[in-house]
């Protein structure tokens, strides 16, 4: 038998979670204060988990590397959060959300996990509203919804373009309440740098105090990792600058399997790259595809003239525009899933129709002029003006757009110096989210007993492509509604353990590993900065393990990254000392892990000889350029086991995916 036991409960899909939950073990309230739990990360997943476990009475220690838990990367999420509430009465249901998510993930996610997610989705909204999260509302005072890609219903709840902010501040308020009550101890500006195992079980972590540089030992009966995704392996991505894979990678090295690392989401609507000193890319929320239409010129000469600055997009006649998503996918139009939209944009730019005057001509338009007209007219009518002038319509239309997307339009203008109310936005795909992550079973437990993984850091719910507005849902579902049950079940066997000592040989060894790494970097005395290597890695990843992948490119990437790893360790220069705030040292340790992960991503992509979701192997496509899945040979989760310093030696374990309740089919958005 494989070492991967997914622990999916028996029974009908709609009953599994309820029945299972009813039979999980509990820890009595008087025993909980004797049990310590560590939570690494205070994004939606970590904050909600820490708040819930603290509230239950466990002794919780929470960690984040920012100066406050409220600044976790979840804060940046823009567009919204899905829930099967069917408030809009458009036929939504738990089953439909479940089905859309499995299909959106191109049939590479686990049915039971995804159904559970859909089941608890409604509770998330109830919970958030009760906490005072100010979601957008309609005039009647009830909650408003919008549509996101890959669905034909309106199930996305939002707060302007700042949904992540409002949700995280909600979770942060719950966490703050527990901190105030003394049930959670918060460690800001701390970075977990290793996990400690005793008798095979997760028993604590080694963390570095980022202000003083001190290395600290923290013990616990269970460790929850909610450290976010690894998109920054590409250097340029929409992730926050500090987002990293270190916590996840360090547990991988200590025995947690890493699943589907090659499944990365490239988001279609981001602001194109402007220059070599660029540090990150900015997302323009998918919600904009509710109102914006994506196009490039039909004629190559128009595209050339635009790039040369001789032609303005607004001067191109309607008939000379190619609304390529509407053309190729009439049923879903501009709202096809992200992987499909991204590839379509790349196809047009590769064919020479790109409109951005950067090195690669990579850019397409996202145009709001149609929506401004139609919404302007609606607003005029709603205000009793049945004969509005063109000018009135445009003014009202712009107002409507501003009320929905104001902060995004402002952000765009600040970055590009162009006014998107007057001229279409320029956009291009960018790395955004990682579906792959630490392998977990139905309990969200990794292959290290007592080490649980939640949020973007695990692999569990989004298969080969995540649908928009589903990551926020997953983070809060994991933290509020799954972990409190499954972690308690695990802890039920720990009530007699007593406090875990930190002066054991296991803690000594883990601390030694951390100190060795720090000393190695600080004494390396190389010549190149950490960023120099990170950018190099990013370029290899983007060109060869990015939107289009093929056997030759992947083999080259594997070799190039192995080479880069050597150079990095020989020649990186890390200034400063260990006993102080040292951002370069922090970065060096993160990049070391990114390099190893990057190699594993290429190895995983090479192994997966099919195209599915965000993983597009150029060898496996149909006549129209759509993904060709190979269900016979690749309907599995690919989970990798660490086997020492040479990443080529990692061993693949396969968890077969069984679809009992959904008929697996080719994904069709036409």
């Amino acid at each position, binding site marked *: 038998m494989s070492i991967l036991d997914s622990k999916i409960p028996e029974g009908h899909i709609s009953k599994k979670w309820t029945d299972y939950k009813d039979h999980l073990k509990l820890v009595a309230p008087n025993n909980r204060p004797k049990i310590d739990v560590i939570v690494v990360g205070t994004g939606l997943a970590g904050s*909600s988990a820490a708040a819930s476990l603290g*509230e239950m009475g466990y002794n919780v220690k929470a960690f984040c590397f*920012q*100066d*406050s*838990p*409220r*600044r976790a990367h979840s*804060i940046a999420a823009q567009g919204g959060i899905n829930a099967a509430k069917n408030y809009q009465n458009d036929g939504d249901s738990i089953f439909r959300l479940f089905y859309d998510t499995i299909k959106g993930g191109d049939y590479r996610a686990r049915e039971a996990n995804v159904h559970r997610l859909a089941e*608890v989705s409604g509770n*998330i909204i109830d*919970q*958030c*509203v*009760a*906490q*005072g999260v*100010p*979601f957008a509302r*309609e*005039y009647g*005072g009830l*909650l408003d919804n919008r549509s996101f890609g890959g669905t034909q219903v309106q199930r996305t709840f939002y*707060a302007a373009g700042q949904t992540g*902010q*409002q949700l995280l*501040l909600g979770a*942060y*308020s*719950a966490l*703050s*309440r527990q901190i*105030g009550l003394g049930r959670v101890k918060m460690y*800001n500006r701390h970075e977990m740098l290793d996990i400690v195992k005793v008798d095979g079980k997760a028993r604590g972590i080694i963390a570095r105090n980022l202000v003083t540089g001190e290395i600290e030992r923290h013990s616990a009966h269970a460790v929850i990792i909610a450290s976010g995704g690894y998109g920054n392996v590409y250097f340029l991505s929409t992730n*926050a*600058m*500090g987002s990293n894979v270190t916590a996840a990678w360090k547990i991988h090295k200590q025995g947690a399997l890493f699943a589907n690392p090659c499944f990365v989401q490239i988001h279609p609507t981001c602001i194109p790259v*402007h*220059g070599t*000193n*660029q*540090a*990150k890319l*900015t*997302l323009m929320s998918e919600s904009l595809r509710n109102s914006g239409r994506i196009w490039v010129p039909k004629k190559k000469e128009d595209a050339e003239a635009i790039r040369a600055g001789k032609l303005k997009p607004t001067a191109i006649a309607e008939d000379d525009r190619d609304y390529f998503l509407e053309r190729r996918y009439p049923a879903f139009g501009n709202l096809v899933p992200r992987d499909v939209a991204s590839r379509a944009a790349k196809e047009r730019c590769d064919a020479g129709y790109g409109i951005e005057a950067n090195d690669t001509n990579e850019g397409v338009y996202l145009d709001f002029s149609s929506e401004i007209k139609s919404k302007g007219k609606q607003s005029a009518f709603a205000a009793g003006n049945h004969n509005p002038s063109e000018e009135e319509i445009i003014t009202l239309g712009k107002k409507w757009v501003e009320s929905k997307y104001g902060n995004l339009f*402002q*952000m765009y203008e*600040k*970055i590009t110096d162009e006014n998107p109310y007057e001229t279409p936005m320029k956009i291009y795909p960018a790395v955004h989210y990682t579906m792959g992550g630490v392998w977990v079973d139905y309990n969200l437990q990794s292959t290290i007993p007592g080490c649980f993984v939640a949020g973007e850091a695990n692999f569990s719910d989004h298969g080969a492509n995540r649908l928009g507005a589903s990551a926020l849902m997953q983070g809060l579902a994991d933290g*509020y*509604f799954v972990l409190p049950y499954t972690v308690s079940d695990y802890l039920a066997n720990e009530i007699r353990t007593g406090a875990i000592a930190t002066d054991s040989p296991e803690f000594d060894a883990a601390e030694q590993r951390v100190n060795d790494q720090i000393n190695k970097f600080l004494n390396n005395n190389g010549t190149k*900065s950490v*960023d120099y290597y990170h950018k190099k890695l990013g370029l290899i990843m983007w060109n060869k393990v990015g939107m289009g992948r093929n056997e030759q490119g992947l083999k080259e990437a594997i070799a190039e990254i192995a080479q880069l790893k050597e150079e990095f360790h020989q020649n990186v*220069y890390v*200034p*400063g000392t260990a006993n*102080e*705030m040292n*951002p*370069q040292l922090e970065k060096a340790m993160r990049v070391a892990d990114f390099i190893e992960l990057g190699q594993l991503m290429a190895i995983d992509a090479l192994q997966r000889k099919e195209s599915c979701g965000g993983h597009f192997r150029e060898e496996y496509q149909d006549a129209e350029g759509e993904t060709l899945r190979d269900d016979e040979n690749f309907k599995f989760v690919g989970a990798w086991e660490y086997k020492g310093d040479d990443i080529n030696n990692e061993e693949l374990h396969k968890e077969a995916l069984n679809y009992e309740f959904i008929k697996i089919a080719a994904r069709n958005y036409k």
Partner: protein
Amino acid sequence: MASKTININLKIWRQKNANAKGSMETYKLDNVSTDSSFLEMLDQLNEQLINERQEPIAFDHDCREGICGMCSLFINGEAHGPDRAVTTCQLHMRKFKDGETIYVEPWRAKAFPVIKDLVVDRSAFDRIQQAGGFVSVNTSGRTMDANAIPIPKHDADKAFEAAACIGCGACVASCVNASAMLFVSAKVSQMALLPQGKVEAKERVLNMVRTMDEEGFGNCTNTGACAVECPKEISLDNIARMNREFLKAAVTSEA
């Protein structure tokens, strides 16, 4: 995007650690793209310093899209620099001229001690939140249906506008008294405007204001500088609302 480059001079606050004495140091940086953000410019300077084997400048940042509230910086005498309604990470170099000398300092306030260079400790804000910036509801998910209580759109929108505060601390840094009134009033207002927050309104405002005072923030003398520099355009109306809430609470709790 018509991109060009400029050469600039920088005067930047350097301070080794909390106990060290700091000073302004001078740097010269050439070939800065006007499309770069202010923080990308600092990245470029740091790369230059590293290559010259000097210690790079520490500054706080993370999301780089104006939402996490981690970036700070007092630039040419203004919190988050010369542009309006933006954070430092969204400030772009096209706002500066070729040959210009730019002054960069950390937030200055008793309640925000410097940790290193441009990095300050804002954990006082967290402690104010812990004192009452929440609704005391358990996380069971079994509260009541989200649509059970309709909330007038106007109130919901106002609550949202107050909730947009990113906790950056620019209001404190811009205030001659280093008052945190704008920050605290934004949270108090958000909750006061929503039915869910009304139940504990009294305890909330009293506890948050008490903690604010204990943390060493100054008094509000209505200069309004905070709202001018606030990157999220948090309105002074919130301070007025909090004062009303506070008075109401103080009066009734004495009774």
